[in-house]
């Protein structure tokens, strides 16, 4: 948690509406301002230009991998975690060292991951 006057903004790239709504509620409850993206196009727009501090990227966005957005985030120096229902084997070599939240994850896991991100 920062002590800035602005609440920290988080990019939530998640195509499942139920999951997105739940996470938005939780993140909002935790003091985050949340920008949602269900499609890669939207995700890329936000990653490129939105004033975001953190990002949670579902690897599969309606059938499209979210790695291009990750590339943008990395360039911008914005920390992020991946989330995935997959085992993690399909992640390309360059993203292997990134943190992956295995669905389903609970609040504690989410908080730990975000804390780690913000600490970095």
């Amino acid at each position, binding site marked *: 948690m920062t002590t800035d006057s602005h609440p920290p903004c988080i990019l939530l790239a998640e*195509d*499942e*509406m*139920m*999951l*997105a*709504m*739940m996470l938005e*509620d939780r993140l909002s409850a935790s003091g985050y301002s949340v920008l*949602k993206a*269900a*499609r890669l*196009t939207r995700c890329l727009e936000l990653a490129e230009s939105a004033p975001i501090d953190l990002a949670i990227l579902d690897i*599969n966005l*309606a*059938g*499209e991998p979210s790695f291009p957005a990750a590339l943008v985030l990395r360039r911008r120096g914005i920390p992020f975690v991946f989330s*995935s*229902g*997959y*085992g993690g*084997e*399909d992640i390309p070599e360059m993203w292997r060292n990134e943190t992956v939240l*295995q*669905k*389903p*994850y609970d609040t504690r896991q989410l908080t730990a991951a975000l804390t780690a991100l913000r600490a970095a």
Partner: protein
Amino acid sequence: MPSYLKPVPTPAATAGKGGPTAKTRKRPPISTMIVGIGASAGGLEAFKSFFAHMPVDGELAFVLVQHLAPDHNSLLAELVGRGTTMPVLEATHGMRVEPRHVYVIPPNATLTISDGVLQVCKPAPPREHRWPINTFFTSLAEDQGDYAVCVVLAGTGSDGAQGLRAVKDHGGLALAQSGFDHEAMNGMPANAVATGLVDAVMPVSDMPARLLAYQKQMHAAQLKKGSDGVRGDVAAHLKIICELLHAEVGHDFSQYKEKTMMRRIQRRMLVVQAETVTDYIEHLREHPNEHELLFREFLIGVTEFFRDPVAFEALRTIAIPSLLADKTSDDVLRVWVPGCATGEEAYSIAILLRETMGSQRGLKVKIFATDIDNQAIDRARAGRYRAPLNGISPERQERWFSKDRDDYCVVKQIREMCIFSPHSVIKDPPFSRMDLVSCRNLLIYLNNDLQERLVQSFHYALRPGGFLLLGTSERLARNARLFTELDKKQRLYLRRDDARTRPRNFPNMQRHPVEHAAHATLQQVENLIDQRARQALEPWSPAYVVINASHDVLRFGGDTGRYLAPSSGAASLNLFQLLDKPLRGAVRAAALQAFASGTRVVREGLTLLLDGHERSLRLIVEPLAEGDGKVEMCVIAFNELELALRSAESSTDGKPDSELTRVHALEDELRGTRMQLHAAIELHETAGEELKSANEEYQSVNEELQSANEELETSTEEMQSINEELQTVNAELNSKNEALNRLNNDIRNLLDSTQIATIFLDRELYIRSYTPMMTDLFHLRDGDRGRPITEISPRINYPELKSDVAQVLRDMAVTERTLRGIDEAPTFLLRMRPYLTFDNVVDGVVLTFVDITESQQLNSEHARLAAIVNSSRDAIFGFSLDERISSWNAGAERIFGMTAEQVVGQPLNMLLPPEPSEETRKFFVSHERPTRLAEFDMTWVRPDGASVPLAISYSPVCDHDGTMFAGKLIARDVTERVRAERHTEMMLAELNHRVKNTLATVQAIAQQTITNAPDLPNFAESFLSRLLALSHTHNLLAQDAWLGAPLIGIVNNELAPYRQDSDTRVDDARVRLQGDETHLPPKQALALSMAFHELATNAGKYGSLSIPEGQVTVTWTTRMKGQRPWLLLQWTESGGPTVEPPTRRGFGSRLIDEGVPYELDGEVTLAFPPGGVTCTIDVPLDEVVL
């Protein structure tokens, strides 16, 4: 045709001295006929007899040739001269031969004649080359042509025969001396006759007349001849004669050489003594036999194979089958062909026999072909004939003759059947035990007597049941009883066994009669002398009678009349009836005494009154004792003693008388002595004369004997050398025989040891030999060799044997056949090949049977395995111990992408893949392979670049004792398996993903429901129904393998509880659905189903479905917006309670108007007008395809 009718090269002709045949013959214009007379031992007498009957008026000249001792002056001229008035001269060189002259060969000289002039050449050649008669006859023939005459008189040996051939060859006349039996005399005449060329055999005394007649006739004919020696008048009538002959005999001679025919006609004219051609034609018409004779005359010199095919047909159909029927394999079929000439006839018979009997049981055939002509025999032995072969069909020529340059040679098989030898059917003893005698066209040249003798000869020669074949114009005549006629036309006869011919009928057996004849001649001569002596002594001997024991007179001798006085009455020869009465008493007494005592009885002093004088008579009775001493006859002699008595009287009377008497007596004595002397002198002279003759003869005989002796010595030497040669040959044969034995042993051992059943058959399927294994196939026993195979019962089923053999013999090619055994019986491979003899003649077949049962089983097993290997989808291939690929199946070609041609024979390590595992490398490179089944995987890269994952299994191939001799590999393409494994992995990951996502969704639903639920029961109801809705949609998606779900199904899932009608497909009073058939992808299906659940739940709780009258209408359409299909769905509630807008936004509203557009990237409008809730959903039905 007998060979002696053909020209024989004479020594003179071959020597070519002066070439008398080549130069134009200058016959002296005079028609002197020169007669050459040859004689030897015994010839002097014949000469004398000849000239005693030869008148001096003929135009004949004579040249006498005798064998003379070279170192003795000959008295021949002198001796012959005594018997003729013609001049007899000893020949000298250059002496012209004049008619009515006799020329005698000088001793130690060779006498020839040229242009009518005698040529004397001294000295004579050595004895072994000395043939004075042949030499002269030959030169005479060449010099005088058809004017030459030769006469062969008594003599030993065969000189003259060859010269006689020359004379006959030039158309001259030949005579030979006959004995008293009208047969040719032994020695030279017989040898001359044996040539068959002698025109007449006759006693010497008849010869002059014959010669004179001949000379006259020749003279007449000579006048009519043209310059070429052919009578001009013959040509003019040739056509007529040919027509006559054609009509009578059936042969047309008009195409024959005219001159040859004319000469032959002339010869016939001389024979029939026709002066002119018209006479001869007349003779032809009157004597039907003459046609045949002229016909035969024409045929002389024509010889060919299978002459008179019909006769051979008769042999083939009648004689040969009968002969073969009697024969077993051990027998020898014996055939005699006398007068075989150059062998055509003999070979024809051999061919016929060989063809007829096939290869029957190895029956041996011996054809004795004989002729007196050595040269002809030599040619026959050579068996070489100049093409074309008349009478031989092309088939026979092909089969029985082999071509050698221009000639055809009789094949060995036929040649070996014939034995040629010089032999005279006339002179030599006949052969015996013959099955067949074929003597064709020989008899016609012989006179009847000789024919008769020959036919008897043949009868003797044939075994019982033997056949005789004569020429078509020959017949048995007087010997018809000896044979049965089988084919009248072809002169085929069967020997009759009931008739007997005795060997004494044969010429050489007649030596005894001839000797008897000589003896008889001697006796005759002796009797003649006795007779003459008796005549001389008759006046001086006493009269006598010979009486027998009964006193009948057997002989009267001398002047018995003065003592006889026959009694009156019946005529009687009884001495005592005939004797003068005064004598009867004394004679009777004396005779009785002589018969009784057997001793001589003399009675002196008998007196007899004769002519008025008293005669004193001495009676002598001499008994004639037989060999056993018994007296059967007596001679009674009457000896008058008149003078003695008178002198006795006168001595008593007085002296003067006594002196006178004495003078008389002395004178008588003197006269008697003189006469005796004279007789003695004459006797002496005669004896001297005879002695000279005898001496001459002895010299001649001596000469011949010496010559014979030398010949014998030469012969002995030759015999010794032949003996030597024979021993050499024998030794060679022995060694060959040993070699053959050894070979034979080898072959027998080979045949016995071989496990292959082999049988040798001849052309007629007779068994030659077989190996022991054959007994498994046929019921063969040791005695079955020589039996036909068809008679042996087989253990195998092979009915085509006969036709197969025929085919092999026809095609000369090897035939193979598989004989399948029935049930458990073994299967055989039969290979049949032609049996070739040493000289490549097919003489049967060889059959080998190989038991291929096991091989067949192996073959079928092999075929089965090969089928498996070939049809396998796996690559199956092998390699040999030298690491080379040895087999490559279709599967291997497909899997490895290389054909068998590319691979087989290549090193195994070519199959080492580009990136091998350690195990794979070890396998292909190190050669240290496991001894058992081994398996490993590898990835092969095909030549086209495609990779194939392979599962390899390797196993060594070992023989029965475990030694590896090859390796075998199976490679299986495991691409499918790998893909399936990957798919499964992927499916598991997907499943994992979905489950996790679903659980995350559930988690979110629970979270949201908890947040909005006032209490636990409400939470439970809302949460469970939401889970149920999710579950329903899952069900629908699962039904279609998660490809999608029907929209109407999803809507119905939520609205079904509110329907009045359970049928979901029709509109209901409360629920109305209207839209095209639309399938929703899973994502859309799940999201929309959640939205419908919330709408329906809200409608059921608070909206139109909360009262029975309320309705819900759902309509939807799909349309294309941009490039994507979009769904536009309208939810409209009506008839329900009045709607009041909600005071707070619940989970349901948030899900519908926030969640659905978020997730589906579309737009949703939820409104709460008072008439009923409406919701418009406009979303794309698929994701953007980037």
